[in-house]
Structures are given as C-alpha cells and as structure tokens.
C-alpha cells in the first residue's frame, strides 16, 4: 500500500461537505448531459444544495443593508457563487426534463426508469402525456377507427416509442479501478485504471456510471 492508496481511501470516506457536494453536483450534471438515457435523480444531493442556496439567499438579504465596503465585496462573491450553483441545478433539471419529454412513453412503460424520476418529475411526465394525448385525440385521432388510436404500437415494423440509444459512444474518466465486460465478446473484460480516459459504448459502462465508478465527460 503506497501513499496514493491511503489518500484514495481517505477520499472515499470523507463526509459530504460543501465542496464535495458541489463536486458531486458537477459530476452528476455532466453525467446527465452526456448519458443517452435518464439517470437516477440525485434527491439527497439536490435537497442539500437547495437548503444551502436558501440559506445563502437569506444571508444576502440580511447583508444588503450593510454599507461596509468589505461586506459588499464579500456579498458580490457570494452572489456570483450562488448564480453559478443556480445555473448548475437549473441546467441539471432542464436536461432531465428534455430527456423526459423525448423518451416519455419509453420511461412510462419501464418501471425501473420511472423509479429514477423525482416525484415532481413523475407528475410532470404523466400530466404532459395526458395533455399530448388529449391534443392528438381532439385534433384528429377521434375520427380514426378504434384500432388505430394507439400511440405505442409497433405494427408495420416501425416502433412508435422512441428509446434512448444505449449504443452511443460516451467519453468517460475512471474514478475507481473497475473491470468492464464487453457483452457480446464473451468473457472479454477490460480493466480500467483510476484516472484513465476512455471512449466506449454507453451500454458497456452503464452500471459503472450509476455506481459512480466512472464519470462521463
């Protein structure tokens, strides 16, 4: 065991501190943006960050009356940081919403994917689909024969449900030493070392992304 290993262990056991949460948010934001499918909603993380955001907003409101030039400079830094965090959370949520809209029917029909949405996202997904359905029905589907009204049939060899392309390539950085099996070349596995950068099919590293062993870049 050399010094790197000891440092690594320390890294992993650390408490979720402010800056660690920020790094986590950054990581999951990047993951979400790079992954073709929707990932697990980071409930606890977003919750912690939001509590801090609210605290900072209160702090800023308290301090705005303060005329001390030092306090003012301090405030500007706090506000800039706040804007940046807000941007991250906003972009994170918007990315998820755009994925939800894109693969709505696929997510609805796959229980495991549905579980990875937050409660509000689930409500959004359901009511959005209901609205869309209503629009199609009112616009033209109501005049169609009963058998043709479905939105998710796959007759004629073309599926109507859009699915994420899990075969697409992603760039990733390895955070922990892992072995990745390449599914169709039986038994083949590549050992990924911490710090390495790969381009690989998303499907092959799907689990590793979810565990946090690798992060997408």
């Amino acid at each position, binding site marked *: 065991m050399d010094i790197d290993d000891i440092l690594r262990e320390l890294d992993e056991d650390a408490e979720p501190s402010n800056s660690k949460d920020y790094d986590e948010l950054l990581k999951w934001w990047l993951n979400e943006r790079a992954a073709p499918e929707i990932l697990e909603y980071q409930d606890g993380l977003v919750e912690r960050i939001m509590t801090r955001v609210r605290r900072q907003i209160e702090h800023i409101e308290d301090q705005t009356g303060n005329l001390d030039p030092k306090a003012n400079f301090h405030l500007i830094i706090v*506000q800039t940081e706040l804007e940046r965090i807000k*941007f991250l959370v*906003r972009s994170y949520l918007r990315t998820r919403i755009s994925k939800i809209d894109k693969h709505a029917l696929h997510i609805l029909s796959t229980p495991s994917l549905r579980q990875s949405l937050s409660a*509000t996202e689930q*409500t*959004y997904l359901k009511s959005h689909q209901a*609205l869309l359905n209503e629009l199609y029905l009112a616009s033209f589907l109501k*005049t169609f*024969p009963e058998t043709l009204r479905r939105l998710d049939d796959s007759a004629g060899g073309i599926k109507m449900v859009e699915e994420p392309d899990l075969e697409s390539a992603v760039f990733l950085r390895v955070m922990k030493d892992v072995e990745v099996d390449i599914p169709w070349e039986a038994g083949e596995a590549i050992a990924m070392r911490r710090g390495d950068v790969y381009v690989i099919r998303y499907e092959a590293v799907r689990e590793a992304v979810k565990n946090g062993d690798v992060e997408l870049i």
Partner: protein
Amino acid sequence: MYGELGNKLVIHAKRTQALNLLPAYQTDIVRAVTREVRDLNQDIHEITNSYQGDFNPSADPAAACALLVHHLCVRRNKRCLLAYHRVRAEKIEHMCWNGMDAMEQVQAGRVGMEGEEDASAAAGTPAHALSPEEDEYARQYGDMLAAYKGHWTDIDLTGSLEPPKDLFIDVRVLKDAGEIQTEYGAITLSKNSQFFVRQGDVERLIKQGFLQKLS
C-alpha cells in the same frame, strides 16, 4: 393520390422546425387527411366483409394487395398527422418555456407574414395560427409548467441556460420598459439608455426583448 396530402403536412412540419414562429394551422389538410383515413378504412371493411370471413390471400392476390396498400396508407397518414402535431406541440412548449405569450406570437407572426409572398397570408385567412385544440394545449401546458416551476422558485427554471460569467452586465434598453425594482433601488428603463445591472434582475427583460446585453 394516396398519401400526397400527408406528405404536404410533413413538409409543413419541416418548415415549421426552421421557423421562429408558428405558421397557421393547416385545418383543411388535416381534415382532408383524416377523411382519407376514414374512406380507406371504409374500403377495408367493405373488402373484408365481401368475403364473409373466409378470405384467402393466395387465392385472390389482387384483393390482398389492395388491403395491404390501404393499410399501409392509413398507417402512413397517421404517422404524418402525428409528426405534424408533435412538431407544433413542441414549438408551443418551447414558447411556454421562454415565457412568451402564445397570443403575442400569433400577432408577431401575422405582422411577419405580411412581407412574405405567402398566398394564404395575403388573403388574410390565418385569423389564428393555433387551432382551438392547440390553444387549449398551450394554456394547460403553461399551467402545468407553472406548477412544476413552483417547486423550484429559488432556481428560476426558465432562466438562462448560458453559464453565468459575470454577476453584473451592461445592458442597453431597446424598448421602454418602465421602472424595475432591484436590490440597489429602482431603475427607470427608458429607450436607448444604458445600465450596469445585476444579470439576475434583468434576465426576463432580455428574453422578452426589452433589453439587449452588451458584451
């Protein structure tokens, strides 16, 4: 010919994708395509009924072929209709996210179209770019979005998706926007004046076209 009208809708949808505004709803074509679907379905029923249930495709290839073509056409028309409505629905959603009033867009659309050589616009037919169903959809989607956004009031989900660089920015006022309240007091935004303000305070106004960001 079968499917020709459906194709027209797809072309309209394609054109809509490239436009900033929503062109008028093609009520006539949509109606014609749905009529075509109904007629084809009628035909399918007549053909299958005339065989009284003991239809053998290999014994009567002509009828089998007719059925197949009818079916394919019906499905294709459905896909065309779905694609057309989907593109428009996405446009409407986009407008909702941008905080633009759908009605305002229609107004802007009409003004914009006057210059175009669009025959239907010249005749003054598009009284309304959205169909009544789409109007309803826009309203309900807006409500739903507001509900979802309500959970994230501190974040302002509809805010800018550009990473923020500076807390304060220079803006020029393009249209009179009246007085706004900021933490540093009230500012009167009159046309052609220039301000150094906090980005978060004026983001909405930039989006709505009252202010221009100077870099």
